[in-house]
């Protein structure tokens, strides 16, 4: 039964454990724990494609499992499969639109993907993260600055929205500088130089 299968996995008898899990799932395809054990085991063995496959199968049934979507998103990021990672975070934002963590992760992935459209969307999600966190999220503030600079490098002054973008960027920069001045003053000089280089290029 279940306990025996779990014991097999704990002892490292991978093949036997896998057989046991698969047969248990045939009898009861809704056993969440066993599904997850199968994914965990694949991961532990370094069988990442297998882990992805099992995790996707799991999510077809249990699509409301946020932890599973996060896990899948993280695996995709570690494999540099950013489009697939973006999909995971889109699912999370759809189901829990007020959780800033998902907005931030989505923005990070989009920035990493690059390209004008992704950068513009990333900036939107960094901004929504800032809104959802009352202006306190350092990563989102940096993200806004990075996006504005990257967008400006692509559009090179041809876009009207750049002026507006520069305003948001300088606001974010001001918040960052104020925060560093208060809580990490010895790191302020580097911050100021970095922000300057980001605003100069936009």
């Amino acid at each position, binding site marked *: 039964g279940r306990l025996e299968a779990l014991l097999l996995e704990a002892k490292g008898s991978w093949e036997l454990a896998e057989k046991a899990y698969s047969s248990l799932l045939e009898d009861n395809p809704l056993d969440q724990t066993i599904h997850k054990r199968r994914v965990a085991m694949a991961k*532990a063995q*370094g069988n990442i494609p297998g882990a992805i496959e099992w995790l996707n199968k799991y999510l077809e049934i249990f699509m409301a499992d946020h932890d599973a979507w996060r896990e899948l998103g*993280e695996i995709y*990021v*570690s*494999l*540099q499969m*950013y489009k697939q990672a973006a999909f995971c975070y889109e699912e999370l934002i759809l189901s829990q639109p007020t959780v800033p963590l998902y907005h931030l*992760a989505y*923005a*990070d*992935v989009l*920035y*990493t993907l690059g390209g004008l459209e992704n950068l513009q969307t990333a900036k939107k999600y960094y901004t929504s993260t800032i809104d959802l966190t009352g202006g306190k999220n*350092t*990563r989102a503030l*940096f*993200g806004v600055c*990075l996006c504005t600079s990257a967008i400006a490098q692509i559009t090179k002054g041809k876009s009207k929205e750049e002026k507006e973008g520069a305003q948001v960027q300088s606001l974010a920069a001001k918040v960052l500088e104020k*925060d*560093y001045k208060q*809580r*990490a003053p*010895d*790191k302020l*000089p*580097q*911050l100021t*130089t*970095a922000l300057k*280089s980001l605003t100069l290029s936009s």
Partner: protein
Amino acid sequence: MGSSSGDLRYELSQNAYIKLVLHSLNHPTSAVNGVLIGRISPSNDAVLIDDAVPLFHSHLGLLPQLEISLMLIEEYFSAKGLNIVGYFHANERSDDYELGGVAKNIGDHICRYFPQAAILLLDNKKLEALKKSKDRSAVTQLYVRDASKNWKLVHSEGNNRFSLREPSANLMLLDYIASEKWQGIVDFDDHLDDISKDWLNPGLFN
């Protein structure tokens, strides 16, 4: 000037070494990474790695935090005449000896600014064995880029291409592990979550 990476020695200081290994011990179930700080030796035949900054323990493959951290770190150390001279990576699984895509990409990125940059990959087996053996060699593997810009493992046994600056570094490391000094290590992830946390880890070696 510039010898190609084919001739250069790489020398790792105790402080950099211990910081990086302790960082990986602080996050035993995640992949972690960091940057190596240093300079070319006055005799132009070695890259001296004087210090290191632990970077992240989650989402290593995302760009925004990497770009910010490299900007701030480079800015800080260039004022002291030092550069980012390499990259450190520890894989998530202890039996994984592959230099993955993320590590190679970050290494390539660092090479754009410092062409002789190296990658250090944590060797978990060696780290485990350290407690019993009296091995004085580093528990990391060294990778450099060949002429076709591919990352190649450098075999340092017997040719001195990669060495620890202080021969007692492993003894110090074991001492720090025993006193659980890895608990207080601050990386850039920690700093971004709370900027009052100092990624320089000033109190670590006092």
